[in-house]
Structure formats: C-alpha cells, structure tokens
C-alpha cells in the first residue's frame, strides 16, 4: 500500500519552491538561449511557474480569485504563443533558422 500520508504534509512552501525553481529555469532559458522556439517555451515555463503560485495561494487562502487570474494568464499565453510562432515562421522562411539575432533586421 502506497504510503500517502506525506501528501497531507505538503504545505504552501513546497508549491512556492517548485514555482521558484520552474521560474528560474524559465528565466535562465530566456536569458541564455538563442533559439526562438526554446525562448518561447521558456517564457511559457515562467508563466506557468507563476500560475502554480497563484493556484497555491488561492488554495491555501481559500480565495478563488487567484484561480480566475490563472485563466487570464493562460489566455494571454496562448495569444502570445500565436503571435510569437507567426513571427518565428516568417523568420524561418527568410533565414532558414529561428535564431533571435535575425530580429535585428527589423530595425528601421
């Protein structure tokens, strides 16, 4: 029988640590990677790290507003992904690669 009692011991801190770790991973990706696709994935990771902390706070404070906020974040993330991927596609069409340095060509 799987011991499940430790699940009852999971507190707010655990969620926040998870959120912080995911956020840091995402930020490292944004700062260091040059590939646009990876960059967008990293951004997604950061947004979802925030979502985790929203939900965690919502649960532990008995306040549903945090969960409402998560829906907004997810919507915006979807929209951002759509725009970003469209840019990625057009960059790829032009340069056969999706490195962000090609965005310099957008300079006026």
């Amino acid at each position, binding site marked *: 029988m799987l011991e499940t009692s430790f699940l009852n011991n999971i507190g707010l801190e655990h969620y926040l640590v998870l959120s912080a770790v995911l956020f840091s991973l995402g*930020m490292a990706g*944004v*700062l*260091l990677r040059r590939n646009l696709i990876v960059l967008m994935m990293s951004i997604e990771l950061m947004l979802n790290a925030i979502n985790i902390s929203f939900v965690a706070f919502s649960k532990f404070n008995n306040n549903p507003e945090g969960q409402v906020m998560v829906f907004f974040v997810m919507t915006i993330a979807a929209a951002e992904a759509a725009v970003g991927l469209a840019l990625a596609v057009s960059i790829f069409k032009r340069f056969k690669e999706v490195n*962000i340095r090609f*965005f*310099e060509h957008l*300079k006026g």
Partner: protein
Amino acid sequence: MNHQILIAILLLSPVVGFLLNGVRFKSANYVLAGSIATGAVFVSFICSVLLFLDLVSMPAENRRIAVEFFTWIAVDNLKINAGFVVDQISSIMILIITGVGTLIHLFSIGYMHHDKGVTKYFAYLNLFIFNMLILVLGDSLLTMFVGWEGVGLCSYLLIGFWFSDSAKAAAGMKAFITNRIGDAAFIIGMFILFMTFGTLNMHELNALAPTTIEASWLGAVTLATLMLFIGATGKSAQIPLYVWLPDAMAGPTPVSALIHAATMVTAGVYMIIRLNPLFIAAPNTMFVIATIGAATAVMAAIIGLTQYDIKKVLAYSTVSQLGYMFLAVGVGAFGAGMMHLMTHAFFKALMFLGSGSVIHGMHEEQDIRKMGGLKKYMPITHFTFLMGWLAIIGFPLFSGFFSKDEILWNAFSSPRGGELFWIAGVIGAILTAFYMTRLMALTFWGKSRLDSKVHPHESSLIMTIPLMILAILSVVGGFVGVPHVIGQYLGHIPNFWEQWLEPVIRAIPANEFVATHAADHEGLEWSLMGTSVALVMISALTAFYFYIIKPGTSEKVRKIFGPVYNFVNHKYFVDEFYFAAVINPIVKQSQNLWFYVDVHFIDKMTYWTADIVKGGGRVAKSFQTGNMQQYAMYIGVGIVVVLSFVLMR
C-alpha cells in the same frame, strides 16, 4: 499747428530720411540720396523755425513748450517720460543743428558725389541729426543721454566711414572709446543727482538746485557736476580727453564740419548751460571747468601753430574754441558761452566746408605746404574763408568778435572769473589769430607751391552756396548779442541775446568785486577790448609778415625753438604718454588675463567638464547594446538586488 505734432515731425523727419536711405544703402544715386537726406533735415529746420516763432510770440516769463509722448521708464520712484522741451536754450540749438545741418547736407551732395557709399553716408548723417535733436530736446538727463550716446555712435560710424583704411577705422574706435570714458562719468553724475534730488528731469533739477553755494569739494552737487563735466570733456574734446578730435578728421570733411565743429562737440557746453543752476551752486566745479577750458584753449592753439594738415589745424582750432566756451561757462557767463557756441558753429562749419572745398578742388590734397596762391583758382572759397577767418580771429564787428569779447570781459569781471583767466583767454586769441592767418597765408595767399600735375578748380554751386550763406551768418551773426558798451554808440542796439536767455540763466550770487569795479565799468571794458583786439591784430600781422612778406622767417624761428617746436609738433607726446601709461598696461594685463585665466583656467575647466561627460557617456553607452536578452538580464539582476535589499533588511 499743435506743438506735439510739430515736435514729432521735427524729430521723425530725419528718421524717415535715415530709413529711406538706409534700406537702399548700396545705391550710388547721389542725387536721390542727397535730396532725401537734405529734404528731411530741411523739414526739421522749418519745424524749428515755426517752434521758434511760437516761442517768440509767448510772454517772456513762460517761454517753454513741453510735450510728452509716452512714459518711457517707470520703476518705483524713477519715472522717465519721452518728453521734449523747446525753450530759450534748446530752440537756438535746434535752429543751429537743423539750419547748419541742412547747409552741410547740401554741401555733401557735391562733396560725396563720386563716393560709392554715398547713400549709406546720408543715412548716417540723418541718424546723427535725429540723435542730436533728442540730445538737445530731451527733458531729462536720461533722454539727453540717449541722444548723447546716439551721436557718439554716428560720430564713430562717420569717422570710420572709409573703414577699409585701417588708420581711419582706428580713429573711429579711438573717438568711441575715449567718449566711453567720459560717458561712464556722466552716468555716475546722473546716479548722484538721482540719489540727491530723486529726479532726473532737468526742469525739476534746476528748480531743486540749492540757491546757496556749496563750498565743499565733496558735496553731492559738486561731485555730480564734476562727473557731468568729465562726461562733457569726453564729448567736447577738453583736456584730458581731447585726443580723439584731431584724429576724427579721418572722416569725410562735411562730417568734420557738422559733427566735430558745429553740433556734437558743443553738447558738453549745452549740457552745462542747461543745468546752469546746479553748476552755479558748485563754485569748485565752475573753477575746474574754467581752468580746464582756459588750459585747453591755449594748449590746443599752440599745437595748431605747428600743423600742416589743413583739417588738423581746424581741428585744434575747434578744441581751442571749445575751451573758450568752457572758460565762459566756467566763469558763469552762460549766455556768452552759448553765443560763442552759435557763432563758432557758423564760422567753423564755414571753414571746415571751405577746407572741404579746397581739398575737393585739389583732388584730396590736405597738406598746406603743397598749396598756396589758391585765391585766384577758388575765388568764392577764398572769399568765404576770409569771412570765417575775420570772424574767428575776432575782427571788430564780425560775429566772433562779439562772442569772444563777451567771454573775455566776463572772464575778467565775473565774480567767478579773474585776471589770469582773462590773460589765458587773450593768449588763446593771439595764438588763434596767428595760426589762422598762417593757414590763410599758406593756403590762399602768396606764391603757389602746387604740383605741376594738380589743376585746382572752384567747386560747383551746390558746394559754394552753403559757403556763402554761412559766410553771411559768420559776418552778421554777432549782432544778436551786441554788448551794451558798443550798442549804445550804434544807435542803441539792445542785447537781444541776453534778454532772450535771461529767464533760464540763474545769476551768480554777487560779491564785492563787482561793486568796486562798477564805477569805472565802461572804461575798463573798452580798454580790455582794445587791448585784446590790438594784440590780435599785431599777432595776425606778424603771421602775415612771417609767411607772406618774408616767407623764410618761420623756418628761422623754428630753428631757434628746435626742441620746443618738436615737442609741440608731436602734440606734447600726449598720445604717446597715454599709450605708455594707460593703454599698453591695460593691453598687457588683458593679454595676461586672456592667457592665464581664460586659456589656462576657464577653457581647461570647460574641456575637463566636457571630457567627464563624454567619458560617462561612453560607459553608459556600453549598456545599451540593443541585445534584448542582455536587457532582460539587467532587469532580472535588478530585481534580485532590490529584493535581496528589501528582504535582508
């Protein structure tokens, strides 16, 4: 006509002339330019005559036309109006300025017709007339000062009119800078007067002037009047600031006649006459004025003996005659000073224009050693010059005789005068007779020393008509102020001049000197007059003997006085002294200031500041790469730093 309109036309007519000629200053059409300018001044002259006639028709006690156009300055209790006054003094001045001015404008048409800048020349000349009118009509010292500076500017522009010659440009600057020194003192004088009396309006100042005399040297009135007098020494070329006037002869000759003989240089005398109650209250200032005037009259006349440039002789003569006027106002003979101002304006303008005619006829030759015998080539110029000569040496019944005699008599008899002033005046008169006769002899009489290439010719009618009118004025001008002792034998001619000026001239508080001499007053006056006239005649005849009868005599005399002659010929080395004592040290210090303070300190500081800013910019620039990921990192690092600061606290 309404006085306000009349004065507005009087003032603005030359401005219109200035603008009309000023906007088309490159034109070489001398007939058009000359007609506009002469017409503008002539309109002013007509206004002056109308104003004068109005003034005459008024009762003698309140002959005063005062108009105000607008409030110019109103700060706390300082209130200056753009107000103008025509009274006994300024009406004479505007008649001289516009009357003689019209004649000189007319002469200029002939004199300047081959000059390329003729339109610019007439524009300047009109501007000068406007400023001179502001100077004499302004009802407050500040309004007068506006004109005072304006005529200085025009003088500078016209002296340096042929500025491509650097010596002439330098002469213009010399005049301007020398005048600035006097002007600074003039401003200080105004400050003291405003502090003491709380007004700059001359009518109010004259009313407020103390009726008791101020014995101290450091009294407010004495200091203020001394400062104003220093201003006058600059403008009217007296010791120690006279040095600019001889150099001012670099300008066109009609300019010398108008500005540096007839009008502008008399501004100092005019200012003192206008403020006569103030000056009377300060006997120490009056003594200084009379002394400086007498010294200038003699000293400048001595230099005049040695000059060979026809205009330089006349320039030193002007300085000397201005000295006479200051001697007159210094001994309290304001009326006589004013009268000499007028007669001098006539005969000196005449002689300057005559010299212009000679220079024109001789094709720009100014050295009298290369002239001689011009009488037969230029009969009209010679005859008119002769009238001027008789007037300036004070030949009886010519205009200069009356004014000069009046000054000499007052220098002797006035409570503020004395025998020494009379002696100085007579010496001045003797010297004047000598150098003027010398000038006549070397230029017009005797054997011709002309270059065979030069063919002198008489000037055109447009130049000789002004000469003739001025010659008539020089002859009869004195009859407006015939002294009582002479008038009673000439069918009781009253002294119009004294009656006219009497309401605006305050009398000097009498002392016992007049009382003791009152008994033999008439005999004394006749004998003094006889003495001076006799000495003047002897002097003129001596000069005639020196230069016509025995032409070599002057050479011998010069040899005897070798070093003295050299000293005088170099104008007592005053210019050299000023250079050594004032100008060069200032230039040297300025160069030091420039090199050590400006170049090595102020410039360096600004360079350092620029370098610091540039270096800072270079550092800051390295952050702005355009790399978005780098920016994101800055944000991340920033958040970490701020958070750790907030949380660790």
